[in-house]
């Protein structure tokens, strides 16, 4: 239980998706103009991460990993399908995003209209794919740890996009050199935010 909590906190602050690994930068920069839309996208990312990472965890451990197929038949114990993991992960992510979109549209139309175009866009958000690949690389011991990691990464991403959106709303009226406006300053602010997040480094839980 302690381990799960430590993974959760670590993935929010220390291994933050944006500030430590630069994952999901494209939508992070494109959507962070107002706090309201960033909130929608952030929540959608948390939600999709929370669904896709555990599903991919099960696939990884019962289908793809070396020897993972032995539960099916003992003779399959030396089968190694890990080279297929990219294509399986992206297929799972694309189809789950599609599924989530349909379910949300049917049962929560208000949420659907507020998330709008962000849901389908999430399929190509590197943070989602990246979380699944990190999950594979770090070899979490059980599905609880993988889920904690997914939730933590999602919250970390949400925190980052809310932060930059709030700052960008404030600097709209600042006097920034013309060529630096927009994208340039967004990068530099993100850099400064990342420096402040680095103060969490080295915290042992």
């Amino acid at each position, binding site marked *: 239980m302690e381990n799960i909590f430590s993974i959760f906190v670590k993935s929010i602050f220390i291994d933050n998706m944006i*500030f*430590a*690994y*630069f*994952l*999901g*930068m*494209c939508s992070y*920069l*494109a959507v962070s103009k107002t706090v309201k839309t960033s909130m929608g996208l952030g929540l959608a990312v948390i939600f999709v991460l929370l669904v896709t990472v555990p599903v991919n965890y099960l696939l990884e451990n019962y289908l793809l990993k070396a020897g993972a197929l032995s539960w099916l038949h003992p003779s399959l114990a030396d089968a190694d399908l890990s*080279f*297929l*993991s*990219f*294509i399986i*992960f*992206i*297929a799972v992510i*694309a189809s789950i995003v599609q599924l989530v979109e349909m379910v949300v549209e049917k049962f929560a139309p208000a949420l659907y209209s507020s998330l709008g175009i962000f849901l389908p866009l999430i*399929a*190509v*958000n*590197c943070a*989602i*794919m*990246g979380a699944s*690949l*990190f999950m594979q*690389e770090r070899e979490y011991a059980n599905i609880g740890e993988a889920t904690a990691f997914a939730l933590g990464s999602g919250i970390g991403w949400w925190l980052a996009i809310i932060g930059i959106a709030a700052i960008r709303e404030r600097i709209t009226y600042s006097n920034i*050199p*013309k*060529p*630096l406006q927009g*994208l*340039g*300053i*967004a*990068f*530099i602010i*993100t*850099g*400064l935010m*990342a*420096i402040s997040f*680095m103060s969490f480094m080295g915290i042992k839980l």
Partner: protein
Amino acid sequence: MNIFSSKQAKPLLNPLLKDNPVTAQVLGICSALAVTVKLEPALVMALSVTAVCGFSNLIIALIRNLIPNSIRIIVQLVVIAALVIIVDQILKAFAYEVSKQLSVYVGLIITNCIIMGRLEAFAMANKPIPSLLDGFGNGLGYGLILALVAFVRELFGSGSILGWKVMPGGFYELGYQNNSLVILPPMALIIVGVIIWVQKAHTKEAK
């Protein structure tokens, strides 16, 4: 047909500076920053992206009239994922050290927006040869930024280029120290911000 006539060269050369995928189109930033601590992985990454981008453009351009419009995203993803698997296996076989350093970022080429973006914007509407050139051009434009950022970070962060020491030893005796902040993630963001600043200042009159 001369492959390097000016009309053919346009899709190859435009993305290098004027229409650079990273700084002008704001695509593919995710992986651009993470692999740039040292020059060598950055170059390998640039090469991988160029190869995947060029060949996926070529394949999609060849079959563009056969793809039903409603499932084109899935078809594109499958083509990209297959190419990335090939690249990943080649890296693991011939450059294991670099492949370990790149870790998950090789897999993340799949979700690199440059490749999807070029497939959607160019390969779906153009003939195979220009598409191939467009793919290579965008890959190289991406590689250019990667190499630039990695060059700055390795030079000031480790005092070396491609692993060779280039900072004169005398500097260190005078009290010069490697700037360890440059190696850390935040500096990559700031360097890219500055590159965008310089580039926009130069292309301002074109707008």
